[in-house]
């Protein structure tokens, strides 16, 4: 992108160049977004044509970076078909340099009104953090494979997600951990301590079944543990991981029953 930007900074000194170039860029952007919006709704050109009340051949003609006969009337037909709003504004040329890399699926994607987060029902909105929380906890606490010799590892990025999610809603986190009868290796707990979560409800919940001595304080844990991406804790190979129930497992290792079932 740097090469292109540098060249455009040079060539845009010419008024003809910048205006013609921008016209081409606008046409290309519209055609590309039209295609992205249609494909993310899994519509054929024929379906879009029906929704927009026009011929399929016309849609095909407009889904082309070279199409240059856009009208507001036509664009309004598409906004209606996609249930979106049309936004037209005058911009400085510098914004083109910012917009250039945004010509990708992610940046061009738009929610129809029914999926627009701004208009979701409050109840539905509350459900989202819970799902995110469950996902974050699942990702953060990586228990050893049942048949393995036992390395409990912690995904730092996952822990950070837990921290972010937990900060917004301790109650849901507690509820999740309780529902799963919480359970993690000393390594997980120590890593939580390193990350400043040792006094958190999360840590206390996860420490159920683990002796207090396994939960290091922040400074102690920090001095013991490397700050690597994958902190591991050795588990004695004598542990029979084939039958680990909370009652039978050693005090330093409690297995999450739901994971055990899955395995």
């Amino acid at each position, binding site marked *: 992108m740097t090469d*292109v930007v540098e060249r455009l900074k040079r*060539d845009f000194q010419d008024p*003809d160049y910048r205006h013609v170039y921008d016209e081409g860029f606008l046409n*290309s952007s519209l055609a590309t977004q039209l295609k992205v919006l249609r494909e993310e709704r899994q519509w054929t050109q024929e379906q879009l044509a029906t929704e927009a009340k026009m011929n399929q051949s016309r849609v095909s003609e407009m889904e082309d*970076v070279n199409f240059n006969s856009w009208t507001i009337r036509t664009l309004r037909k598409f906004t209606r078909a996609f249930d979106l709003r049309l936004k037209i504004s005058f911009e400085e040329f510098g914004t083109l340099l910012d917009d250039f*890399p945004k010509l990708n699926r992610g940046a061009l994607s738009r929610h129809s009104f029914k999926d627009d987060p701004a208009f979701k029902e409050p109840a539905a909105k509350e459900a989202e953090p819970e799902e995110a929380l469950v996902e974050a906890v699942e990702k953060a606490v990586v228990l050893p494979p049942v048949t393995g010799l036992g390395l409990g590892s912690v995904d730092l990025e996952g822990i950070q997600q837990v921290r972010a999610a937990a900060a917004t809603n301790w109650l849901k986190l507690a509820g999740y951990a309780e529902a799963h009868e919480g359970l993690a290796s000393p390594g997980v707990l120590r890593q939580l301590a390193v990350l400043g979560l040792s006094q958190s409800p999360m840590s206390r919940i996860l420490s159920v079944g683990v002796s207090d001595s396994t939960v290091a304080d922040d400074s102690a844990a920090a001095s013991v543990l490397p700050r690597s991406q994958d902190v591991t804790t050795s588990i004695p190979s004598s542990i029979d991981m084939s039958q680990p129930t909370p009652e039978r497992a050693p005090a330093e290792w409690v297995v999450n029953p739901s994971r055990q079932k899955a395995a």
Partner: protein
Amino acid sequence: MAWDVYEFLDNRMRPVIFAWVRKERIQKKARILLDQKIDLLREHGPELPPGLLSSGPIDGGHIYKLKVRGPVMLRPLLCKGPLLMKEEYTLLQGAIERNDILPPSDIAQAEANRQVVIGDATRRKVYDGCC
């Protein structure tokens, strides 16, 4: 994903597209639109922008055409690679389409130029605009 876009250098080491637009006296507006489409290819590759490239090789081999609609139908011919097939395109020959037909001699020349680049990587340079 960004692609590198190169331009073939002819026997006199002139950039082939730069020389072609002058030889054919291509209007300024068309040249600017050509630059814009090549930037599009460079920044976003062949998959996303619809209608930017021919859907497949036009010669059954390796030559594609870049489509630029303007006062004339500019169809610069190019290939993927030919050195790094998943990272770069090389513009090989200028061409103008009339009545939906490309001059066969231009397609043949594009393939010949591709072979030259395969044998000598110094016979191309990074595309830097044609205006």
